[in-house]
């Protein structure tokens, strides 16, 4: 079920990459704004890109990070808690989520976690 890979690959309050975020044009509000349990994500009316209104209020649930259709959101650990740089990137599939963890030395680990029960178990190893 869990695959650890030796690849090379790593951040918590959500940071939005302006080169990737398009503000979810066509949606009534960006998906991250729609889903945030803390009502923290919002659209910056000037840049038309998503922004967290109060980074310190985030619970690090990563709902926005997983929901972003353009993978524009990176969850970053607060510097008071952990060294820089490091990233944790979820890639959401149909029945699984693939997590790539890159520690602050650049070491990569990958995990495939099942998210929905499905007929076939192709996500499992």
């Amino acid at each position: 079920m869990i695959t650890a890979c030796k690849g090379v690959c790593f951040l918590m309050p959500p940071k939005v990459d302006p080169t990737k975020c398009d503000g979810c044009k066509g949606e009534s509000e960006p998906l991250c704004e729609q889903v945030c349990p803390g009502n923290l994500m919002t659209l910056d009316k000037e840049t038309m890109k998503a922004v967290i209104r109060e980074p310190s209020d985030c619970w690090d649930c990563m709902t926005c990070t997983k929901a972003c259709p353009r993978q524009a959101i990176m969850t970053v650990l607060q510097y008071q808690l952990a060294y820089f740089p490091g990233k944790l990137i979820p890639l959401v599939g149909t029945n699984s989520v693939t997590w790539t963890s890159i520690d602050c030395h650049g070491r990569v680990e990958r995990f495939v976690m099942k998210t929905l029960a499905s007929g076939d178990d192709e996500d499992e190893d």
Partner: protein
Amino acid sequence: MAQRVYIDADVLILGGGTAGCLAAWEARQVGGDDLRIVILEKAFIRHSGCLSAGMNALNMYINQGTPEDYVSYVRYDLCGAPIREDIILSVAREVNDTVKIMEAAGLPMKKKEDGRYLNRGKWNIEVNGSLLKPITAAKAFEAKAEIYNRVYVTELIVKDNVCLGAVGFGVRDGKFYVCRSKVTLLCTGGAAGLWRPNNRRDAHHRIWYFPFNCGSAYAMCKRAGAEMTSFEMRFVPVRTKDTFSATGTLAIGMGAPMVNALGEPFMEKDPYYLSWGGHTAPTPIRMLALQRETLAHRGPIYMDTTKGDPAKVIGLKGQYLDMSPCIVLYWGCNDIDPSKEPIEIDGGDPHMVGAHAGMSGAWTRGITRETTVDRLYVSGDALGAAPSRFISGSWTCGRIAARHAVNALRENSCQLADIPEDDLNKLEDITFGPLKRYEEKVKEGVWTDGTLMGGITAKDMESRMQKVMEEYCGGRTHWYYVNETYLNIARKHIRRMRQDQLQYLCASDLHDLQLAWDVINRLDVCQLVIEHISFRKETRFPGYVNRSDYAGTDPDFDCFINSRWDPVSDEVICFKVPYEQIVKGDRKKQSI
């Protein structure tokens, strides 16, 4: 005046969380196609609340033994506490059915070779619960419940001790929502954020419980005049340091014992802890042990993960990714390899929860989940005196509450009430108060830093409240110790804030209005907590609340502490309610 949205419901569910979604589903099962089921949800139902980050285990499942054995375990795990055994029994009898329902709904269950659920310890089963919330919400969709997302419920509509509905505001649209109902089920969660969190500034919400649960269920019940229970029985989490991720994953999953700086598994040495079962001692005792060990200068305290199978560490990271992903990154960025070094743990800020290892909430009649206010039901963390239901038990509890509510609706032929326009206008004024006040105060003047000359923000008020609770009501930095002198100071300040300072609370926009209501609700919960702790003149749950003036237990307090708020005097009147032991046996031992 705000634009109004009028909604009529047969069954009104406040809070689309663990309990609320399954309540909607059950209401449809027993109530038929014509029942109008409405859910008002503060956030977005597919991803809101405690389950938003996922969860890797269901902590209530009858793997072995009987429902009675589970009650015996829960009682033991809370130091032989008085608990509502009738309520826990009712949940334990149905919880396995509920898990089956959720498996059929798509929840990936981990299984053993023989096809049985993979257990972790006696009462837990492992799941891949990263999508636990969307799967739970799908049950409400299946029930064709009418769901209103981003509606913050501010007050119940109560007349002559009957709940007639609820009002709130649209967090996005700013409209005033008026919902009349025949029965109302309140399940908006417990309360985080009353005390100061361990981490400051940008990490202040890196806490154990969902920080956006502000105790609105407790506060609304209190203001509605409902009988409340066990607010002295707060929950203090022992969790991984800094990230506050679950330790059950380490303790039960990895067999990692607590050790001190000297590497000693201290729970296995001291006769006091041994008398409670050693490293599996009741939850408050494990908290107490961490405190005592640290105060004896044998900290830091760890969970020793180094003695187990290193291959399990990979599995460990996977399990955390399903519920608390940040710890995996935390380890990666702090060079922590749990197979090579033990994991440091710490005590967090206390939380008020009814469904975890705490038991604050509304008092209910029999096993109906109906509060002492007619037609008002509670479930999930809002239900008091019935701890350790966790997720699977809260799902189940939601189902049971809905069943009783629908039956009562039919038996009593409950009807929608006419609510006088004057009453609604008053409720609207209260709901939008902080926003209106901002508009007035901004005219009085603004400092160069943008803050009001004549008002204060929700954040300011929260900081003040947390300071008072931390310093005078047994916060983490005081190692959870209180005495009557401290409590009197806490009482004085919280009263002052509630009675005198709320008139300055301002909200500049709808998000701010949400924060303002969060702090209004939290202050009400603080009042309950202070009065209950003050009334219980003994230390029944050491580790959770240590009374330096009344150490040890007193047989006179082997009972529930309940209370009712008097709106005229603004006093919370506490009184004793006898405990009824249903499951026979030694209360301080597990039956299996």
